[in-house]
């Protein structure tokens, strides 16, 4: 029996159906939008838009629970810090060292989480394929071409021990680089722009891929929206890419 089928069978069990399946949906319905300067961007496509590579339930929990939790934490954190509340997220992350010590780690974790996931939803929902135009040229020039990029990116993602991300960054001049980060750290904290990135926290893939992170990394390329990535690349070079 496949893992999916085994899990489906498990979920059909009475006790599990009650405790496992109903629980997150009820919780989702109760998740009131926390008030404050930070808001959860709506997913730019349906939960099932990345099927079969990323399942709809994973998308729903990932966006509605994991990402939303970072927003709630951020809004709570800046309640008594008006100056921070007024800053754009990318500025907060680029200037973490100047943030109030009491909330610095929180801003790093939840602010990084907000930025990373905001970017993540944008670059998915596509059909994979290959980049075109000057993005394709940059991939060849800086990362050895798409095949090498995929292999190196998947390798870097597999090597992240614990939770984290793998990114392709760009500087203002359009030079690309591959970098991985632990937890919710972001290249924005190093003054780099994120072109695109993949989430390798287990929550990003566990329902469908369980322990098989390499299979998830491989499959993820099928949902990359290269047109969106190209938009981000143009914006980064024009100085207008925020997150």
């Amino acid at each position, binding site marked *: 029996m496949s893992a999916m089928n085994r899990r489906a069978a498990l979920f059909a069990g009475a006790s599990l159906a009650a*405790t496992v399946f109903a629980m997150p949906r009820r919780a989702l319905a109760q998740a009131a939008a926390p008030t404050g300067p930070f808001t959860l961007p709506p997913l730019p496509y349906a939960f099932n838009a990345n099927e079969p590579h990323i399942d709809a339930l994973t998308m729903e929990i990932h966006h509605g629970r994991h990402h939303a939790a970072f927003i709630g934490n951020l809004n709570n954190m800046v309640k008594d810090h008006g100056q921070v509340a007024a800053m754009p997220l990318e500025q907060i992350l680029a200037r973490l060292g100047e943030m109030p010590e009491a909330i610095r780690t929180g801003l790093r974790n939840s602010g990084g989480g907000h930025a990373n996931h905001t970017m993540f939803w944008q670059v998915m929902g596509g059909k994979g394929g290959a980049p075109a135009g000057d993005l394709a040229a940059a991939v060849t020039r800086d990362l050895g071409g798409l095949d090498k990029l995929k292999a190196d990116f998947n390798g870097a993602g597999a090597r992240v021990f614990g939770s984290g991300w793998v990114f392709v960054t760009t500087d203002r001049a359009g030079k690309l680089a591959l970098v991985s980060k632990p937890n919710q750290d972001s290249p924005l904290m190093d003054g780099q722009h994120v072109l695109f990135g993949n989430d390798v926290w287990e929550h990003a893939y*566990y329902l469908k891929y369980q322990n098989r992170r390499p299979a998830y990394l491989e499959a993820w390329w099928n949902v990359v929206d290269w047109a969106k990535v190209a938009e981000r690349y143009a914006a980064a070079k024009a100085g207008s890419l925020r997150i």
Partner: protein
Amino acid sequence: MAFSLPALPYSTNALAGQSMCQETLELHHGKHHNAYVTALNGLIEAKGLAGKSLEQICAEAGKAGADGAPVLNQAGQHYNHILFWQVMSPSGGGDKLPARLAAKIDSDLGGLAAFKEAFKAAGVTQFGSGWAWLIIGTDGKLKVTKTANGANPISTGEGQPILGADVWEHAYYLDFRNVRPNYLDNFLNKLVDWSVVDSLLGSGGLKSGQAA
């Protein structure tokens, strides 16, 4: 000698009634823990680990800082999971602790309720992957602490673990999804075998019996 995956002390469906389902245990023990054992065995020669105990390897890798991380990731996780399987049981749960353990928790941690609160807070606030612990500190007192990824209280030099909860998402995602606090409540109230924790208190912490 090489490291080996110890058999689970119960069947993979034994904890399903306590909200740790069969698939979680199959994957967690048979895939995740097993992968750490395989990776650690692959490092023995290259990293000069032959003849050392698992505990010694954890302590030395922890002292080596970033240089020790590749070994600690695997060795720590091997040790951590050996403990994790032992401290849960189908007959676990409840608030009836053996007298010795109860007295020690009362005197060092302010009682069972305060301990549970502190342990849960440690697990909830361990950002990313890691572990929550009850340890015998270097001063002999019980202490609640947490570590990231594959680290443990032996690698940090904090003390000897007698109870550990895995807060990597793989430990709870199939059963609790994103709701780590509920997983930790369930662990503390339904899964922990207090008699095992008490005997680890008596023996001064888990001795894995494993060596390279």
